[in-house]
C-alpha cells in the first residue's frame, strides 16, 4: 500500500474530481462536492479495499488525505 494508489482510489469516488487534483495535504472537507454522504463512501471504500474499520468519530478527528492514509496504514499493521 502506498499513498499514490490510495489517492487514486479516493479520486474515483468523487465523480466531479479531476484525476491528479487530490494531494496528501488536501483537506477532504474542502473538496467542492464534499457532503456528509462522502463519509459513508470513504468508510465503505476503506472497508472493502483494505478490510480496515474507520468510524465516523475517526473521520471527525482528521482533516487531510495524508492523515486518513496514516490511519488506515496504522490499522493494517
Amino acid at each position, binding site marked *: 500500500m502506498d499513498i499514490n494508489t490510495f489517492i487514486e482510489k479516493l479520486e474515483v469516488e468523487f465523480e*466531479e474530481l479531476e484525476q491528479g487534483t487530490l494531494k496528501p495535504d488536501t483537506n477532504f472537507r474542502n473538496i467542492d*462536492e464534499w*457532503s*456528509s*454522504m*462522502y*463519509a*459513508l*463512501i470513504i*468508510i*465503505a471504500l476503506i*472497508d*472493502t479495499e483494505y478490510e480496515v*474499520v474507520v*468510524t*465516523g468519530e475517526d*473521520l471527525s478527528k482528521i482533516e487531510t488525505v495524508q492523515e486518513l492514509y496514516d490511519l488506515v496504514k496504522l490499522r493494517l499493521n
Partner: protein
Amino acid sequence: MAFSAIHNVAIRGISAAVPKTIESNWEYPFLSESEKKLLIKTTGVEFRRRAEKGMATSDLCYEAAKKLIDELGWSPSEIDALIFVSQSSDYYLPATAIILQDRLGLPTSCMALDVGLGCSGYVYGLSVLSSILSATGLKKALLMAGDVSSATCSFEDKSTYPLFGDAGTVTALEFDDSAQSMTFELNSDGSGYEAIIIPHGGVRNLATKASFDKKEISPGIQRADLNLALNGLDVFNFSVTKVPKSINAFLAKTNTSPDNYDYFLMHQANLLMNETIRKKTKFDKEQVPYSIQQYGNTSSASIPLTIVAELRDRTKEERLNVLMAGFGVGLSWGIASVELAHIKCPKIIEV
C-alpha cells in the same frame, strides 16, 4: 450464540401493501441537485411510498392479510396466532395485534401480541411465531411486519426523511411435519441503542410541549425530540462489521456456502451498505434482489416486500432456499435460512 433450528413449520404465503402516494427524492426540497444525485446513488432510494395522515401500519397489514387469507383459501376462524412486528403501533396501548384480530374476524381463541422491533424485526418475528407453532402444534398463524416511518421522521431532516418508505406485510405460516427446518441466529447489542432512536414520548422521557419543538441540528437537519434521529455513520459501521461476521459464522455453523442459496435477502437499509455486506460475504449480484430504489427503507417490511416485488413469480412456481439478514435499530440483528416452496404471493396492494 442464539442459534436455533425450528422444525415442522412452512411459509405458505407472503403479501405486501403500500400507500398509493409516491414521493420522489428528485423532488425533496432540502437537498441540492448534486446532493440528490449523490443520495440516490449511494443509498439507492429514489422513490418512497407515504401514508396519508392517520393511515397506520395496521391498515396496510389489514389489506395485505385479507388478500392473502383469500388467496390461501383459509377461513379466518382457523387462524390460531397473530404477531404484529412494528415500531409504529396504532396506540400507546392496547397492542395493535389484538385490534387486528377483531378487525380481520379472527376468533377470540386466537393469540395475538406485538413485537417492538424494526429492521431486524422480520427475522425475529419469523423465529418467534415459528417457534410457537413448532412447540405447541397450533396450526395456522399470521406474521405481520411493517412501519409507517413517514409519521415519525421530520420532513425537514435530510438525514432521515428521504430514506424511509411506508409498507405493511403479512406472512402466513402453517404447521407441517414435512416442512424443511428453518435456521436462525439472533443477536442484540443494546450499547448502540442511541444510534436510531425517537428520544421522547416513551416513559423515560415523557412527551412535553418542548418535545414538539423543531431544532436545527445542522444545515438541512431540523427535527424535534419526537422525531426519529439516525446516526448514519454508527449504523453503517455496525452493519458492515457485525453483520458479515454473523453471516459468515452462520454459513460455517450450517455448513453451507453462498452457492447453497438461491437468494440472499437483506433488510433494505442503504445500497452502499448492503453492497458492502454482499461483497464481504461473497454473494453474487444476481443473488441479492433490491426493492430499495422503488420503496426505500421499509423497516421490518423490507425483506417480505422485496420477495413480493422481485421474486413473486419464482416463489410461486419453485422451491427456493433463501438466506435472510435483518439488521439495525436496537441495535439488533438476525440471520435466517428458510425455504420458500410454491407459496402464494399476490401482487403488491396499493391502499
